[in-house]
């Protein structure tokens, strides 16, 4: 492999230079993994069958909250066909996705925290045997008080669900203030206070989590798993199994959908790994749909209160947001989610002064985490519905109001996020035009309406989950004499098309066909680290790494070919599987010959590329959540028909415009946007992760209402409206070929746009998600009775907030530090984090 400092490696003809010449990028293409997917040949984790393979089932707690007094596994161990029974003491080391929340155990040792928390594992010859043996494990529980929601958590400090956290059952409190918000309110012409509730919902990937682990011939561990984050799983396995990470190989199998539900290291992954090491035979687990609901890590239910001051023209003078977040039983990504819930309010519209107070509580339910949009769809819903109310009171068209206050490109926001390209205004104009908004808004007949909302989302988290200075993504390329190119990268294909992004970028730079490329992704042994498929980071980060590696390879090849053809290397072009003189295109050679020439000249050719995001100006504590190399923007108009007799909502059409920077493969980009719309519509109208508390006098039970794909109502393709998608392309300097994200942002405007459309249709405000016929009927009844035509929460409880970190915004001379905290030049690891990471 050539030395990275090799002076021969120079950048030739940046592929960004001449955009009209792109052959692969921007061309709608069949994705590279499409054939395998549609012919059923993609090997998901559950498709793996190995000789001597045993099957694992987990015994899960039937109680929402209890201490484990004693576990007797003897009857299960003696059951014919059972190979092994594991309990918490076999894998006691705590782990968790965030260094600050190492609060999970693969099998609970002495405390169960929700129905479905695993307490023992049976590994048997057949899955049925393992299932039957679960009933032979005797667990003696001491029942503890059930804590079913955040208000109960605030009122019930004891018993604590966890021994760590702020106090009692409060997991995390956040208080940040950027500028003096009270002064902002004093300057306002009008002040709006609204409370909203966003019910929790889940990812519902079609593929249920599955894993297979083996002890290799040489005693090392390999695990195939449907995970979005093989690197973080790798770290968790090393920690819990007390094995050198170098002896562990994690292979992320293609995920049949993830949406954030496969981003944590999971107990079942650790259990099968442990069992495979003990038994020295392959061990597999495939969760049932019900168990996926217990893994959850989905949308946090959030109660929120927005107080916003505005001028008569709609300009915001100050905003104060409070959130009460139902975290469920474990930390998961919750600390980050708590910050995210307050992070992005400033990235769409100019908010000169901003205060955020967030509180996440533990409750006895499956843990919540980073579902698509991670912590931001809930406050986005509140903010966009409140803007609709503001526009109405100020008698300004809601589209015009937003156009008036859109944040500028390259701005640094009040909370010190540096924006990149911002084409939100263009998004708004496009959907307004396409939907004929001006002819429809407040003009359609009773029962029909339109609503508009916008959003922003990060293109990759600016910081990794554990603190380190290494790249966030790496790519290696191997050039074969055949002209074949292999890409090695830790990036994980979860259906979003990350493999295609890598292949497309490399193919573009080298002038070859994406189908000539082989991909080895999501494998910790083969490829360099990529942090995982979360936070919309892969296209930008792995894409930039691939771009760098490809350009380096191109430079080496160009060097060799230039000599051979006697053409200055700057004049060489790579296209149509040829390397040729751009001045005299007939003078050239096929790509494979070019590789051979370069190999003969320089030896075996392989290159690497990596990507590290730029440093963020947000230096204050908590400023690590929200910064991103650049942000995507979306605007949506939703049309609804509301039946005033039944409250039934139908959505005939949705227009969405998404500021994507550049669509690398427009087919895929549109797929992401439409998929987001689909998921958003499910959240808006029907999806609920709901729990049943049985009558307290009779039972302590707190169970998932219906953990099945039939009864957890989610729309199917037949329920989808017509979606008119526009991609707004202004290449962003941060992205590979200018690309920004498309996987999460377009989900965000859907829920508030539906709510705003329902108001336009029947004149009632549903300040709560999902918007069900029952809620509409109740609000219509209120309207009829002459009361406030609204359904939603009326009250935000009192919380003892800590003193806010006060960070003066850039326009008040702030440097990104809090004035009442030790200044931090760059982000450093806090002591607490250091202890918990080790």
């Amino acid at each position, binding site marked *: 492999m050539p030395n990275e400092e090799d002076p021969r490696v120079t950048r030739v003809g940046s592929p960004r230079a001449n955009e009209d010449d792109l052959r692969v990028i921007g061309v709608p293409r069949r994705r590279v993994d499409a054939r395998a997917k549609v012919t059923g040949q993609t090997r998901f984790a559950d498709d793996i069958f190995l000789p001597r393979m045993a099957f694992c089932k987990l015994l899960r707690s*039937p109680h929402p909250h209890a201490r484990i007094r004693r576990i007797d596994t003897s009857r299960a161990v003696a059951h014919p066909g059972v190979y092994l029974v594991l309990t918490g003491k076999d894998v006691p080391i705590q782990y968790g996705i965030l260094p600050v929340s190492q609060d999970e155990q693969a099998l609970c040792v002495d405390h169960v925290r929700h*129905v479905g928390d695993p307490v023992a594992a049976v590994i048997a010859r057949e899955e049925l045997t393992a*299932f039957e043996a679960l009933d032979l494990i005797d667990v003696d529980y001491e029942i503890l008080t059930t804590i079913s929601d955040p208000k109960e958590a605030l009122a019930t400090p004891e018993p604590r669900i966890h021994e760590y956290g702020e106090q009692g059952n409060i997991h995390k409190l956040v208080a940040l203030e950027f500028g003096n918000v009270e002064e902002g309110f004093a300057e306002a012409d009008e002040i709006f206070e609204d409370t909203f509730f966003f019910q929790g919902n889940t990812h519902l990937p079609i593929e249920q989590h599955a894993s297979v682990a083996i002890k290799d011939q040489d005693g090392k561990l390999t695990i195939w798993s449907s995970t979005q984050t093989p690197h973080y799983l790798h770290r968790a396995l090393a920690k819990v199994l007390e094995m050198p990470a170098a002896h562990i190989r994690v292979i992320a199998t293609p995920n049949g959908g993830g949406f954030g539900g496969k981003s944590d290291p999971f107990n079942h992954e650790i259990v099968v790994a442990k069992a495979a090491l003990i038994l020295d035979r392959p061990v597999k687990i495939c969760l049932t749909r019900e168990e996926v609901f217990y893994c959850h890590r989905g949308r946090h239910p959030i109660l929120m209160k927005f107080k916003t001051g505005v001028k008569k023209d709609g300009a915001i003078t100050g905003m104060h947001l409070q959130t009460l977040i139902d975290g469920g039983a474990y930390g998961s990504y919750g600390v980050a989610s708590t910050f995210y819930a307050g992070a992005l309010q400033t990235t769409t519209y100019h908010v000169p002064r901003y205060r955020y107070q967030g509180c996440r509580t533990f409750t006895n339910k499956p843990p919540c985490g980073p579902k698509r949009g991670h912590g931001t769809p809930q406050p986005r819903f509140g903010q966009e519905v409140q803007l609709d109310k503001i526009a109405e009171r100020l008698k300004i068209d809601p589209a015009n109001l937003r156009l008036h206050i859109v944040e500028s490109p390259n701005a640094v926001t009040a909370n010190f996020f540096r924006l990149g390209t911002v084409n939100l205004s263009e998004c708004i104009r496009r959907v307004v035009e396409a939907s004929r908004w001006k002819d429809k808004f407040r003009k359609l007949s009773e029962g029909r309406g339109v609503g508009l909302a916008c959003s922003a989302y990060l293109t990759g988290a600016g910081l990794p989950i554990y603190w380190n200075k290494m790249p966030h993504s790496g790519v290696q390329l191997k050039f074969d004499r055949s002209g074949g190119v292999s890409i090695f990268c830790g990036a994980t294909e979860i259906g979003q098309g990350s493999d295609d992004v890598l292949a497309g970028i490399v193919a573009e730079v080298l002038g070859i066909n994406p189908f000539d490329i082989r991909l080895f992704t999501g494998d910790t042994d083969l490829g360099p680290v990529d942090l995982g498929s979360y936070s919309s980071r892969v296209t930008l980060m792995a894409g930039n790494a691939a771009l760098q590696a490809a350009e380096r390879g191109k430079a080496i090849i160009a060097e060799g070919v230039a000599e051979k053809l006697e053409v200055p290397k700057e004049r060489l072009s790579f296209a149509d599987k040829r390397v040729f003189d751009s001045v005299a295109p007939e003078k050239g050679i096929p790509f494979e010959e070019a590789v051979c020439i370069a190999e003969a000249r320089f030896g075996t050719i392989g290159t690497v590329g990596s990507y590290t995001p730029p440093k963020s100006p947000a230096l204050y504590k908590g400023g690590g959540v929200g910064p991103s190399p650049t942000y995507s923007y979306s605007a949506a108009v939703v049309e609804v028909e509301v039946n005033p007799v039944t409250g039934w909502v139908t959505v005939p059409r949705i227009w969405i415009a998404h500021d994507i920077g550049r669509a690398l493969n427009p087919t895929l980009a549109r797929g992401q946007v439409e998929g987001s719309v689909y998921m958003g519509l499910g959240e808006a109208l029907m999806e609920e992760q709901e729990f049943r508390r049985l009558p307290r006098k009779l039972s302590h*039970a707190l169970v998932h209402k219906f953990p099945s794909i039939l009864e957890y109502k989610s729309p199917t393709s037949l329920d989808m409206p017509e979606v008119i998608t526009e991609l707004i392309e202004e290449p962003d300097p941060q992205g590979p070929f200018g690309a920004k994200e498309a996987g999460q942002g377009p989900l965000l405007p859907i829920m508030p746009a539906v709510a705003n459309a329902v108001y336009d249709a029947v004149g009632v405000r549903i300040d709560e998600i999902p918007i069900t016929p029952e809620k509409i009927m109740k609000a219509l009844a209120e309207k009829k009775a002459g009361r406030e035509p609204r359904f939603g929460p009326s009250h935000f409880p009192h919380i003892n907030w800590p003193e806010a970190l006060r960070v003066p915004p850039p326009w008040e001379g702030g440097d990104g530090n809090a004035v009442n905290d030790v200044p931090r030049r760059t982000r450093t690891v806090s002591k607490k984090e250091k202890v918990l990471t080790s």
Partner: protein
Amino acid sequence: MMRLPLFEFRAPRTLEEAASILDGERANAMPLAGGTDLLPNMKRRQQVPRMLMSLRHIESMNCVALNDSGSRLGACLTLSEIAADRRFRNGLTALAQAASLVATPQIRNMATLGGNICLDTRCNYYDQSYEWRKSINFCLKKDGTTCWVAPGSSKCMAVSSTDTGPALMALGARVRLVSRSEEREVLLADLYNNDGIDYIKRRPDEILAEVSLDSLHGWKSTYWKLRRRGSFDFPVLSVAAAVRLRLLAVR
């Protein structure tokens, strides 16, 4: 994944053979038609029969006879067949509509008319896995003592969600029940009990062999279904109606 419990499997070729198997096994055996209700229930351990007896190989149960004096529909006709067959129109429209609104195309390809009529009653506390039901200490209908829908009640309130049931009732359908010792025909409207546990008057040794209808010449019928999700869902509410219009009078 959820696994079926082990069971013995029989596949008789005639109604007589089937009736005699049931006669011998009584409550130990359950007839299996499309299995779209029974097999998921078995995975959840709501029903754990020692033997399943398939009805799909009994030819007479797959027949349709439609003529001027009325119609006889074999209980093993699939819902897809009923929904697609142009002969199930006019008077029989309600039945075709109901069949076409059950579940999804894949399920309708397996699901049968007899199975739809005999469908187990449903309830949110009951249509759950064994583990889930364990965490509420089960309920009256199976393995428990309390009804969680109405804790004071000594009766189970689970209801049948059959789509074809209401349609067939509106059409005045009768069903033929065959056991080893006897054969009887009852009005479909009389087949059900107002009890979520003992919901059907079919005895365990009886097979619902066919559905019969009087001539529906001149009748019009329709079936409407309210469901939470438009693409597929069990009914929240169903309404079926059949009318015959005569000059200035509605019967």
